[in-house]
């Protein structure tokens, strides 16, 4: 990529622009948009069986939070317009690069062959309709984790395109994500310099809380932090980080202000019963600080900026947060993407340095 324009360069210096937005959501309008990217068999199956509307119900498009009022067009699914994404998310925040995380029901499909065909179509659609048309966009590889072999095939296929920078997984699937079943996916990602993104969302195959099914959406939503914690515990203690020392995992829309108490609890428990998992030979917090990153939005901020500054100090590293707007989802108003309590020096890191270090494939683009 060429040198950034003068106003971007100035923004970078001030820590207010030139950022790498690590979570934007181009939306799949529906199956019709994917048909050209499916092979003839699945084209016909989708048409004959009337398959459509595979949006994940953990964050349905019709709810208000799915699209900020000033980022949605009447009658359109939020996030379907490249022109709007350019204007709102890229130009709007002076963003230099943005990573696209399309969410569609691939992981919720029981037929792993159809899931793999759909993942392949989504990746081809993303490359052709978004990455080819806007050089500031980068992609996440959608994979069908129902069958890791098929997922690895898809990673191998997409990895030849350097614009794909991560493999995208969903937070609430049917197995904790540290499980060995997923390791071939992690090995393939590591081999190709791809990071692993774990995005909030559920396939609703199991209860969305470990206590069983809640009654209300808000319970689902708030409980996501809990299941991110479960995945982190799984990744540490199953040994996924030990086995893949070069791999970065990005928690997307997980929140991060719960980290200090979670890390204290994980460390305390490890000290008492670490013989269960002797390959974990350092405190869990060290693995998490070395291997895991968190996107900025949504932030569950404490009451004051001073509280946030204390909390960031407790998190203990300034390389763990990655700038994100979660466009077009409604996490903040106006251009108020920064919670109170972030110093300008930290903003600069979060905007650019941290994303570049979290995604090895971005470095080339920004040299």
């Amino acid at each position, binding site marked *: 990529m060429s040198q950034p324009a003068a106003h971007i360069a100035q923004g970078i210096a001030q820590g207010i622009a030139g950022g790498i937005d690590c979570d934007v959501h181009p939306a799949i309008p529906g199956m019709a948009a994917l048909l050209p990217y499916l092979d003839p068999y699945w084209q016909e199956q989708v048409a004959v069986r009337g398959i459509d509307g595979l949006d994940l119900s953990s964050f349905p498009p019709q709810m208000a939070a799915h699209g900020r009022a000033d980022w949605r067009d009447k009658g359109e699914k939020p996030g379907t317009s490249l022109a709007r994404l350019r204007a709102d998310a890229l130009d709007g925040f002076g963003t230099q690069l943005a990573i696209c995380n399309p969410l569609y029901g691939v992981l919720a499909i029981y037929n792993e062959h159809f899931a793999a065909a759909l993942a392949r179509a989504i990746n081809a659609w993303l490359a052709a309709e978004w990455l080819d048309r806007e050089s500031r966009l980068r992609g996440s590889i959608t994979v069908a984790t129902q069958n890791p072999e098929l997922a690895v095939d898809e990673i191998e296929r997409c990895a030849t395109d350097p614009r794909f920078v991560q493999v995208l997984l969903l937070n609430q699937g049917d197995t904790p994500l540290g499980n060995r079943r997923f390791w071939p996916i992690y090995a393939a990602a590591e081999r190709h310099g791809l990071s692993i993104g774990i995005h909030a969302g559920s396939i609703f195959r199991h209860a969305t809380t470990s206590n069983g099914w809640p009654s209300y959406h808000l319970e689902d939503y708030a409980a996501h932090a809990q299941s991110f914690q479960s995945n982190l515990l799984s990744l540490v203690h199953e040994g996924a980080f030990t*086995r893949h020392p070069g791999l970065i995992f990005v928690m997307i829309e997980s929140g991060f202000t719960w980290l200090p108490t979670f890390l204290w609890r994980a460390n305390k428990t490890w000290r008492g019963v*670490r013989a269960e998992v002797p390959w974990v030979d350092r405190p869990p917090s060290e693995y998490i600080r070395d291997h895991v990153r968190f996107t900025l939005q949504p932030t569950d901020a404490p009451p004051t900026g001073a509280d946030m500054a204390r909390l960031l100090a407790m998190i203990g590293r300034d390389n763990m947060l990655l700038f994100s707007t979660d466009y077009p989802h409604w996490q903040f108003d106006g251009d108020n993407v920064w919670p109170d309590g972030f110093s300008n020096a930290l903003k600069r890191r979060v905007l650019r340095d941290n994303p570049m270090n979290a995604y090895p494939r971005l470095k080339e683009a920004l040299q």
Partner: protein
Amino acid sequence: MPRHVVAPVADIPPGTRKIVTIRGREIGIFNLAGEFFALLNRCPHQGAELCRGTLVGLATSPEPGVFELSRRGEMLKCPWHGWEYDIRTGQSWCDPNDTKVRAYPVTVEPGETLAKGPFVAETFPVAVEQDYVVVDV
């Protein structure tokens, strides 16, 4: 540092321990296959009676899913929170630099030597024909 005669060697066979009180301190004496070690009976974490904890081996692993156990009986697991300490050094396995239980030098001395002093014998008579465990406190 006075040297205290704490027990005849035969009283603490290999794989066992004895907790003694020396100058008001409870100290655990451990026999690891004929070598003796002494640790303060107080966990540096929150003060539990560490030396009454379970004796375990050292669990390690070269890679996930591979379990290895070495140094059987040479680690002491605190009865309160399960922290493991190396009986040979007093170091916490999880935090060897900052968490350490006080360790005391131990020797085995023949009764003949002890008779000459300067030792503080505890509440038992020293016989010249036996060996004794001696702790520097």
